[in-house]
């Protein structure tokens, strides 16, 4: 499907060096719609929704937020730590407001899986069902994410 002018503007904001150093698309040549729809189908096949994931990710981030230099053990399985660094980032889809720069690292001890996400990842999944393009620094593969987040 051809990209609309709005999608082109969003894509331009996702390029390396605009909002983040390496951008949001990696080496992915698909349109934004294709990226989003493919990930949505994958999520559907796992019987999960973006909302399920966001609720879980936000919960883990919030629970580890105040332990600033330590990790916390949650539900006896999840070792989580959230690092906050100076600054905030805008949403490439041009939502107003800025998102704090945080990196949450979660290790599912039972399955020996580790995933990491940013506060902007949570926003992008919640508002746009966007998991980033393949090869981007903070791309979240829906299958790996679901496996790590749920027992």
């Amino acid at each position, binding site marked *: 499907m051809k990209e609309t002018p709005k999608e082109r503007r969003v894509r331009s904001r996702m*390029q*390396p*060096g*605009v909002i*983040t*150093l*390496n*951008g949001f698309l990696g080496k992915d040549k698909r349109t934004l719609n294709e990226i989003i729809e493919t990930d949505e189908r994958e999520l559907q096949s796992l019987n999960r929704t973006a909302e399920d994931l966001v609720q879980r990710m936000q919960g883990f981030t919030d629970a580890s*937020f*105040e*332990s*600033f*230099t*330590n990790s916390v053990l949650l539900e006896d399985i999840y070792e989580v730590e*959230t*690092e*906050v*660094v*100076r*600054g*905030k980032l*805008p*949403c490439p889809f*041009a939502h*107003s*407001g*800025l998102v*704090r*720069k945080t*990196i949450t690292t979660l290790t599912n001890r039972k399955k020996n899986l580790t995933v990491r996400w940013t506060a902007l990842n949570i926003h992008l999944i919640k508002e746009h069902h966007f998991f980033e393009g393949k090869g981007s*620094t*903070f791309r979240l593969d829906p299958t790996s994410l679901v496996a790590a987040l749920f027992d």
Partner: protein
Amino acid sequence: MIVQIIKDIVSLSVISGILAVLMVLAQKWLSNYGDCKIDINGKRELTVKGGNNLLSSLGDKQVFLPSACGGRGSCGACKCKVISGGGPLLPTEKPLLSAAELKEGDIRLACQVKVKSDIHIEIPASIFNIRRYNATIAEIIDYTYDIKGVLFKFEPGDKIDFLAGQYVQLETQPYAKVKQKVVRAYSISSKPEMNDALQLIIRLVPEGICTTWVHQYLKVGDKVSMTGPYGEFYIRDTEADIIFVAGGSGKAPIKSMLEHLAVVGCNRKMTYFFGARTVKDLYLTEEMQSFEQVFPDFSYVPVLSSPEAGSWNGKTGFVMPYFKEVVRDAKQTEAYLCGSPGMINAVTKALIELGVPKDKIYYDSFG
């Protein structure tokens, strides 16, 4: 038939051409606002060319409002009071204004207000002290594996007047994949008395455009620009005891404060807790400990949350449990905090529980 089609095409082309010319002329006439006057606080008047936004119009005249997003309307840092001439509030501004600001009615985002006529604004007087500075990189020190100290020397004769604890906004230059300048805020880590140069302590942030530039591209001798000073984080001139708490690059403004107090003299009881994860995250330890010889009642207390076995004999865990060991009279204690919001929240909560008045807890939260 074919002749008629050609005639129609020619007619349409002529009409389109005329319309295009009319649109260009209209654009030129309608968007020409001529010279406009910006009245600041009823005390200063600037004449600017109309048609640009208020933030950049002020910047062109060396009046710098804070801005973290470079005028994209996404950070809300450039708020100011527009008394008249600002036009109606735009939908792009509303999400960044609080309920109280919306009720007040004249708080606007300077980057969204277009200067089309004479305009009357109010900004804090301290904004007039904010200037643009051109500097040369004089020194780069590796403090840790991901923290550098960078010394910026101003052009000959140029001096900055700031309060210890304030920050500047550093402008990057395009590099590698980064095609446009970005602006990022960093606390000044040197003392105000050294006013022909300043030092910033900058931690490498994953995917950070500015920090990657500083860590991987900047070298001694490079020319850079910055604006400042900004911020309300500075030492209050009282006799109260002081607790400083910092983590990571949050050491910067506290270093500036201590260096300043060493110059002007200070007899207050001061304790500085620095929270880090491991020994390799500690830096400037000897410099901070040396203040114990400078001040009559000062101690530097590094606290590690996850030291490797056998690597550390000092305090461990969180910094908060150690506060009660140093607080003499909570009501007569001030706290100065710089670090992540999680740290600020936890430390503030602990200090309030000890009885430190909330309005005596000052902080610079990352972000």
